[in-house]
């Protein structure tokens, strides 16, 4: 076994996993806040990627990504206000169907707005600024890491971890956990539950933008396209594996699935073509057999 190759694969896996982690933690945040399973999460990624693309027409890529975040946040708020809030408290199936409908609508909207053709990030160069992100690729003792991998580790992973820490210790985190438990009790204590929930949707859209922009190839070639929607499906096994209501769980599960995918690509793909796409779902099936709450799912408090 080539140790350098293993280390390189591990890093690449973690880099991809960090993106899964950041998207899934936003997805779980929304689930915690509103008990809504957002089936339109892949479209959130898509819109985030397109927003980054649009910004990249005017600004260097790193700045474009940062500038795409405020409109993404507002997009999340709008979805919550116009779409989710009127449905809260309704039948679960109705809400699920609504988010599936939202996904289809957003799909159509991106097609109308940005057209069907493949886009390349940073196509125009209005201010004569460097288009690409600073190149962070490096090679050390036979281990090569692409700039994209390093960037996603540097940007996405800290962000996902920041969310975990903020949820545990910040004022907003405490309020969100309170509201997620009982909106009525929160309101009775004067907590502005609607605002707390709206911010969760905004943050989720921000996290999806970062993941989406990277997965669409923000840090080196490629461009947003509808293949993102298939990639977005990975959020479900990651969230389920993590326990569905646990943000730390989503982060750990994201990294884990990234690693498994990378190694499966390296060792299994030649034996069983296509196994890499299936493997996250197989793992989820196996884990659920033994741990129905996922890896970090919240256990019910029962006093005996």
């Amino acid at each position, binding site marked *: 076994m080539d140790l350098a190759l293993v280390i390189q694969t591990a890093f690449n896996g973690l880099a991809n996993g960090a993106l899964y982690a950041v998207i899934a933690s936003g997805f779980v945040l929304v689930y915690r806040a509103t008990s809504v399973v957002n089936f339109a999460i892949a479209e959130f990624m898509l819109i985030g990627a397109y927003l980054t693309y649009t910004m990249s027409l005017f600004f260097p890529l790193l700045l474009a990504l940062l500038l795409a975040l405020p409109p993404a946040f507002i997009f999340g708020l709008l979805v919550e206000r116009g779409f989710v809030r009127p449905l809260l408290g309704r039948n679960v199936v109705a809400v699920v169907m609504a988010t599936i409908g939202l996904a289809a609508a957003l799909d159509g909207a991106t097609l109308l707005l940005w057209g069907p053709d493949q886009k390349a990030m940073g196509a125009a160069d209005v201010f004569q600024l460097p288009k690409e992100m600073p190149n962070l690729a490096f090679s050390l003792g036979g281990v090569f890491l692409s700039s994209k991998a390093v960037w996603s580790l540097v940007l996405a992973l800290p962000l996902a971890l920041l969310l975990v820490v903020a949820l545990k210790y910040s004022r907003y985190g*405490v309020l969100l*956990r309170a509201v997620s*438990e009982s909106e*009525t*009790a929160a309101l009775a*204590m004067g907590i502005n539950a609607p605002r707390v929930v709206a911010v969760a949707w905004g943050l989720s859209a921000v996290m999806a933008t970062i993941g989406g922009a990277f997965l669409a190839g923000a840090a080196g070639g490629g461009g947003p396209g509808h293949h993102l929607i298939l990639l977005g499906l990975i959020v479900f096994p990651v969230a389920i594996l993590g326990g569905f209501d646990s943000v730390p769980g989503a982060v750990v599960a994201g990294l884990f699935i990234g690693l498994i995918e990378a190694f499966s690509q390296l060792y299994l793909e030649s034996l069983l073509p296509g196994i890499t796409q299936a493997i996250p779902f197989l793992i989820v099936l196996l884990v659920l057999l033994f741990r129905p709450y996922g890896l970090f799912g919240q256990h019910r*408090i029962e006093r005996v």
Partner: protein
Amino acid sequence: MAEINVENLKVVYRGVILALQGVSMRAGAGEAVALLGPNGAGKSTLVRAISGLLPQYDGRVLDGKIVINGQETQHLPALKVAGLGLTAILEGRPIFRYLTVTENLRAAGHKLTPQRQKELTDEIFTRFPRLYERRFEQGGYLSGGEQQMLLLGMALLTEPRILVVDEPSLGLSPKLTEEVMRVLDELRRDKGLTLVLVEQNARAAFSIVERVYVMEQGRVVFEGTAKEAQADADVMEFYLGGAVAGGFAEAKRYRRRKRWV
């Protein structure tokens, strides 16, 4: 001026179930008032209406007025009502079960400056040393009495001027109930609160309130001082669970007769 006036309030659930059929009550500034009565009398509905939480239960005010500190609130959302200085502790001990004791207090005191929050948290831990001992435990693992203390602490952190408490004695032993009432009384006097106490356990309530409303089937059927209520045989026998010679059948008959008189 921290007072509540409820005038001829009618509340309906899901558009059809009339839970309050014209209730009037008032609690003046700094006064302690009890709402007593059996299950289904409409006490909790009145609490929900006062605190603006009816929409959360699919209910709405059909008619009548609620005036808090001179402002009509019957159609205001819960957050606005809370902004007027009213805090409601709902029935069923609604602490945040997955949050630790400290986090529960933090959530309740989220509007305060860190300095003020710390002062009040210290005060709560001094009043309830048991909460301090268990400050890192999740609320769901506390005993019923501890949860009730935590709720009172949380309410204190919202710095209310009017406190509405729904059935604090539910599921507590007589000794603990006595303790909760003592603390409630102490808090009210120390902070100059207006208190609306909803109870089924009339005896516990009498010890700390000045006036009493007895409710039955969505109406107020008795209004008077705590002393008058205790002296009124009907109130004691039929609404507040006193024993009647002749057993249940006799009580029912007596009650039916009374209703027709």
